[in-house]
């Protein structure tokens, strides 16, 4: 499968935190041909292992879950209220189709919005919030089946915009794709570590995901792959640009030598990278993985992405491919 098709396929899997089964199935199908072992962990994490030659263990992590919702309340005549799973800006939820996973199948509803004609003055500038948001499920034959506790996502559509791609859950499916592509490239790389590709759960709610796997595997090194804000102006920070390769984090949550070794191997092989200063916590799984057991040499590699946590997250598939190259080369770094 080419990179764009793989990304579209992963983006299309609906798997909010805690319900990663669907995306892990897609991951498993696609990574299986390139690894020696695939196993599903009891905590909804998939581990794919590729044996190496130098006796060291490198873990490459990407969380597979996405943001979403849960039905929190039902109202009469087919309306449901939502609570977010993870950081979903209520401003992006209005007028979206919502897929609700009921025990009888998927009910698709729409988030309503009061037309300008009927808005009173005090409603005109009101910031959307979950108190006002409701899903109209009256347009679904499964309307009656919707229950409190049903998991939901905004219905996604992954569109090519020129050579870019825009859709939902590319945070962090772009990284999942990079891991799969890296597994494929490992075939051609000699004298390397054992590599464990770990597709973890519940990152979006800062839940248990990567940590216990890092604990169990007893890794010598870890790379966490996530997405970062691309083409944004963040005060006092260099702008991470879309289409210019993965960003390598530098800061206390990252092992400095490992970081430098990654920069070095990237440079030698002509992989474009960018630097992302991370003075404090990174708010990725890196923060926890680094302090697992007696400490793990950890690096953070991020794929530039625009409009994070909206249904139109945007990436350049070439950045995903560059990231995959870097990850496969990382298996040759001395740990």
């Amino acid at each position: 499968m080419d990179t764009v098709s793989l990304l579209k396929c992963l983006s299309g899997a609906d798997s909010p935190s805690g319900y990663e089964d669907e995306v892990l199935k897609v991951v498993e199908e696609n990574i299986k041909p390139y690894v020696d072992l695939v196993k599903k962990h009891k905590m909804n994490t998939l581990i794919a292992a590729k044996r190496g030659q130098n006796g060291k263990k490198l873990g490459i992590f990407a969380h597979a879950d996405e943001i979403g919702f849960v039905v929190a309340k039902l109202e009469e005549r087919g309306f449901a209220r939502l609570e977010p799973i993870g950081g979903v800006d209520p401003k992006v939820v209005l007028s979206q189709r919502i897929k609700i996973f009921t025990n009888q199948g998927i009910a698709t509803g729409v988030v309503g919005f009061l037309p300008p004609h009927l808005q009173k003055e005090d409603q005109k500038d009101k910031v959307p919030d979950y108190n006002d948001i409701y899903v109209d499920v009256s347009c679904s034959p499964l309307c009656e089946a919707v229950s409190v506790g049903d998991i939901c996502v905004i219905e996604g559509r992954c569109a090519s915009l020129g050579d870019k791609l825009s859709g939902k859950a590319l945070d962090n499916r772009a990284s999942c794709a990079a891991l799969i592509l890296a597994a494929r490239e490992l075939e051609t790389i000699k004298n390397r570590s054992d590599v464990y590709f770990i597709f973890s759960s519940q990152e979006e709610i800062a839940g248990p995901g990567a940590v216990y796997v890092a604990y169990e595997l007893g890794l010598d090194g870890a790379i966490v792959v996530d997405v970062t804000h691309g083409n944004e102006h963040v005060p006092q920070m260099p702008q991470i640009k879309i289409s210019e390769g993965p960003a390598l984090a530098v800061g206390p949550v990252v092992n400095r030598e490992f970081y430098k070794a990654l920069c070095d191997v990237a440079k030698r092989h002509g992989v474009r990278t960018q630097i992302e200063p991370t003075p404090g916590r990174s708010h990725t799984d890196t923060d926890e993985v680094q302090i697992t057991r007696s400490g793990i040499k950890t690096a953070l590699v991020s794929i530039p992405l625009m409009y994070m946590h909206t249904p139109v997250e945007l990436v350049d598939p070439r950045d995903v491919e560059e990231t995959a190259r870097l990850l496969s080369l990382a298996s040759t770094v001395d740990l």
Partner: protein
Amino acid sequence: MKGVKAMYLKELSELDGVSGDEGRVRKFIEEKIKDKVDSLKVDIMGNLIALKKGTKSNRKFLLAAHMDEVGFMVTNIEDDGTLSFGPVGGIDPRVAVGKHVRIKGELAGVIGYKAIHLQRKDELLASPKFENLRINIGAKSKEEASRKVEIGDYVTFATDFRCENARATGKAFDDRAGCAALMEILEKGQRYEDDLCFAFLVQEETGLRGSAVLFEQLCPDLALVIEGTTAGDDPGLPEHQWATHLGDGPAITFMHRGYVVNKKIYESILQVARKYDIRHQPKRRTAGGTDAARLAKTGGGVPAGVISIPARYIHSPLSMIDLADFNNTVLLLSKILEEGEGFAK
């Protein structure tokens, strides 16, 4: 109601025709109705006007629906390759955030939003404004974007049409539902006593502009405007503020902005609905306006009535109608026409 299945609603909903750019919709309608009318023309404004002779021809009865929908126009191509845009018609910036859009009916784009992680507190608590929204077409620079887009290009939401549980969801039901209803009438292939003028109008959403040039061309004796109107029967409003109810039949307007409906016509519509026991409802709010107001004010003035298909969430990427309401609207309309000269006599 048998046999009526809103046959053209899907195509009409998915066609892009923002006010001033109704060509695609017009072409579609023209193609479908040209063999079912006696004559057809497109006027200077872009209205599609079809005539069907009556058996008595003592009156000219105008039936109007507007083809245009609310949407956007590209107002600038920025240095970073993104597009600034402004609303065409009454559209709230809050519904634009995080949507897939289509430019010129073909080019894909998205309206992104600053990641929640990066929003300062004042930004988190600020309602989205058009000045802060951009369309991204994947272009890296102004030069690259300029090869694909021009200032003035029209933009619509890339919404697909669905119909489940006897409810349709999609964009532009205001007023493609009205266009579809008029097309269903023409599908019947029937002649009535009055001469009928079918007008598929432009630029309703930008101030009832297409209908302004009808009188001079047609001099109709009376008119009916078929609209997709606001419902509001959802948790966004307390029940006493609901305008119409989905599923309760076509809404008959007593008055809206700028026009109290001609009493004779209003009462005649109700009489026909009662006579044939067609489910209908009054429009309970006077908010919004239709081409009926313009028709009443132009030339010598045309007495006009308004029959509307209730639609939730209009002027957004996703509106919703009940198919039974659509079918009852077509039924009511055909019964009105069957009354011939007896209607609003």
